[in-house]
């Protein structure tokens, strides 16, 4: 009875929606392509304008393509202190990434694989750190580090790295919690200590999460403007700060196209890393529900 009823009610809407479906599909694609254009264009525009001369950039009306591609802009970029600042950025980023990932993994393993009285309270504390506006702690941290003569050194990043990060602790906890218990039990029977279980069983099996955490954190340090601006002086600062003011002629007029070429060089590693590791990145966002 119900089968008959459904087959009848089905027939109408089905033929009716087929045309509607095609229509909806076409509209969806149109929308998606339009959004793609809007999303990608600012990035493409950086590269397009970076190939112009300053005179061409300021001329009006603007043209979509440069009259001639001035690739030499990309050489001139390096006549400024670009490489020195890139080196500064790496000096901060590499230790910071290693320490943050390691420390977050340790804590994540602690939270995922142990039962202890204070565990849940502590985990709530980990997450609640995300709820505190960062200026609330940055101002006193700046005062504290000034007293300890740590400002204008790279020590703050080392210390923050030792602490790990809430995002990545959460990421590792989620991942470690999903690993079957048998693996751990078998190792325990073999007399493995907790640290060896962590280091020789859990870590080697977690390369996707390690990659995700490392990429996210590297991206964060590479792009961070606030902390270098506050904690470092011009000599020691990173690319993010350097790029804002560095490209000027001797009179102090901005050299926009050079700056854009520098920005292009600055963002390209991130784009490459993203396209190479996109699977990990998307998976990382989805499993934690947290972003960058």
């Amino acid at each position, binding site marked *: 009875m119900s089968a008959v009823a459904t087959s009848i009610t089905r027939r109408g809407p089905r033929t009716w929606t087929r045309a509607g479906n095609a229509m909806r599909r076409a509209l969806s694609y149109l929308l998606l392509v339009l959004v793609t254009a809007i999303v990608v264009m600012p990035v493409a525009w950086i590269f397009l304008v970076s190939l112009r001369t300053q005179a061409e950039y300021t001329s009006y009306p*603007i043209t979509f393509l440069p009259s001639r591609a001035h690739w030499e802009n990309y050489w001139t970029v390096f006549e400024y202190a670009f490489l020195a600042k890139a080196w500064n950025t790496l000096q901060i980023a590499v230790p910071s990434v290693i320490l943050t990932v390691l420390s977050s993994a340790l*804590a994540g393993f602690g939270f995922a694989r142990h039962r202890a009285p204070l565990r849940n309270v502590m985990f709530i504390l*980990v997450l609640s750190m995300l709820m505190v506006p960062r200026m*609330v702690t940055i101002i006193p941290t700046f005062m504290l580090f000034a007293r300890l003569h740590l400002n204008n050194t790279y020590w703050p990043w080392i210390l923050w790295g030792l602490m790990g990060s809430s995002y990545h602790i959460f990421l590792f906890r989620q991942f470690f919690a999903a690993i079957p218990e048998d693996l751990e039990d078998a190792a325990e029977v073999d007399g493995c200590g907790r640290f060896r279980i962590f280091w020789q069983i859990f870590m080697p099996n977690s390369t996707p999460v390690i990659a995700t955490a490392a990429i996210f954190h590297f991206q964060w340090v590479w792009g961070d403007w606030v902390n270098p601006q506050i904690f470092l002086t011009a000599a020691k600062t990173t690319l993010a700060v350097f790029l804002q003011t560095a490209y000027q002629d001797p009179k102090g007029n901005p050299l926009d196209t050079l700056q854009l070429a520098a920005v292009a060089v600055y963002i390209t590693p991130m784009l490459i890393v993203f396209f190479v590791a996109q699977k990990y990145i998307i998976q990382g966002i989805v499993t934690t529900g947290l972003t960058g």
Partner: protein
Amino acid sequence: MERVISTVGVSPITRSRRRYRRRERGEIISFHLFTLPWLLGFICLWIAPLLLGLATSLTNYNGANLPTLKFMALRNYARAFSSADFYFSLANTARYTGIALPAGLALSMFLAIVLNQPLKGRDLFRLLYYIPAILPVAGAIRAWKLLFGLQSGLVNAFLSVFMPGTAINWIHGHFLFVLCMYDWWHVGTGMVLFLAALQGIPVELYEAARLDGAGRFRLFRHITFPLITPVLFFQLILGLIGTLQVLDVPILLASRASENMPILMTRSSFMYMVYLYSEVFGFRRFGYGAALAWIFFIIVLVLTLIIIGSSRYWVYYEVSQEGEAR
């Protein structure tokens, strides 16, 4: 019987219990060892600054007056509440958040729904939409200045095609719009999360409801939306704090960033965090800045608690609610 107990009896039970207890104690110790780096950092780099900030907010500390430090009681707080800049920046931030956050969430949810259809190239679109999120702010902002430039800006050039001679000064005249556009440019982040949530919804639910004659709108209203509310809730909370404490974007977008202090070029870029930043790192008013930070913290905390409190009325938690699923 008694002999058995005396030779074996005491040991197996208590031994296993002791071993269990030892294991349990070992587990607790090892838990604390694993989380020790975080805990040390939490205490030294989080709790200590938090309290230090609270203490500083009661003083007139300016970075160099430790010997002559004066206790100000709540005067820094009183000063904030009688400052025009405080109210202006707070209202400005509230306006920005009020526009950017809900629209951004709606947009990312909408895009996720569109992408949740069986379309070819879905993964590619998802990938492309995520690009803005991986771009460093310091670089992405430069693109934004380029788009919304007065003469050489692409947006004006585009509009000039329809209205020749369009030269809108976006950054100066419509800063909030430019800022919102920057925020919405990042919808890909939220979209990825919504998409993941959408793909977790069992297809049978839709099929069952469709058999019952539910239309597209009702499917969304009664199945899709309730099942993605946990993600929405999550993004609302993290998005709220993220949007309210916007700092680098308005500074980089609206200022000639000099080496020491960025000089703002338009009043509407004066967000709360920008105000706080300039008070602390421009004028060295650490005491006052710490008070501003704590006021902000409390505002954020109250808003977050309101959202959490309201969540039981609108966030769907997966318990057996068979009556509701229909």
